[in-house]
């Protein structure tokens, strides 16, 4: 049961990972773009999480988490959560795009002047 939270995260990776092959989402293949993408929500939401933990908004059950805790009492599962969810989100976006071909906004490269 120590692995319960990790198990949920593994499920999310498995439940979205097949999209890379079957729908050819090419998200993991664009790993540099994916890594930068992950970095932004990780920073923002880890800060939020650290505040919430210190303010007592939420807590974590020691029986169903590994007990590996990062500075600020942040369970390692929480950090992994903010990595796994962006990956799953991007895979979902690109999976729908693969099937429907709806415009997402990055179909063409926008010049710097236009994008700001």
């Amino acid at each position, binding site marked *: 049961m120590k692995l*319960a*939270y990790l198990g*949920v995260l593994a*499920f*999310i990776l498995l*439940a979205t990972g097949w999209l890379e092959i*079957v*729908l*050819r*989402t*090419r*998200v993991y*293949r*664009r790993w*540099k*773009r*994916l890594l*930068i*993408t*992950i970095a*932004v*929500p990780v920073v923002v939401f880890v800060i*939020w999480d650290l505040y*919430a933990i210190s*303010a*007592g*908004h*939420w*807590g*974590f*059950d020691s029986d*169903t*988490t590994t007990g590996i805790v990062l500075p600020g009492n942040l369970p390692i599962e929480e950090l992994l959560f*903010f990595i796994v*969810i*962006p990956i*799953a*989100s*991007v895979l*979902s*976006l*690109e*999976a*729908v*795009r*693969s*099937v*429907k*071909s*709806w*415009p*997402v*906004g*990055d179909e*063409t*490269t*926008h*010049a*710097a002047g236009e*994008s700001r």
Partner: protein
Amino acid sequence: MTYTQLAVIGVVVVVLIDLFVARTRLVTRRAFWVPYAIIVFFQLVTNGVLTGFAIVTYNGDVIIGESTPVDGPPPFIGEGRLAFAPVEDLLFGFALVLLSLVTWVWLGRRGIQRTPLAGPPIWRRDPEHAKPETASGSRVPGA
């Protein structure tokens, strides 16, 4: 601040980033809302596990609902909860998903691994757009 307040602020800030800072305008596109609908269903399932089994517990002072009980699961629905989770988690999740997708699309617009584009599904024949895209329009550096 309470979780309720922070969650509302989080959604507003990320939507403003989408519309006016990154200008990705994902909230105006069905290419965002349809994947989000799929994501939110799985959020209710997976977050239902995390909250229903009290892997993550909440303080009733900072949410609409009550604290996660010590002796059993919180309400499945009602009393500020949906699928065991505080309704605030829907806002938190929306902000997290939207910020992730805004970043992904913004990077693509700047020419960072814009291609190879997604698709087609393996059951479709080689498309008209896959080959030319990878050959030509792969890299235009943003300034």
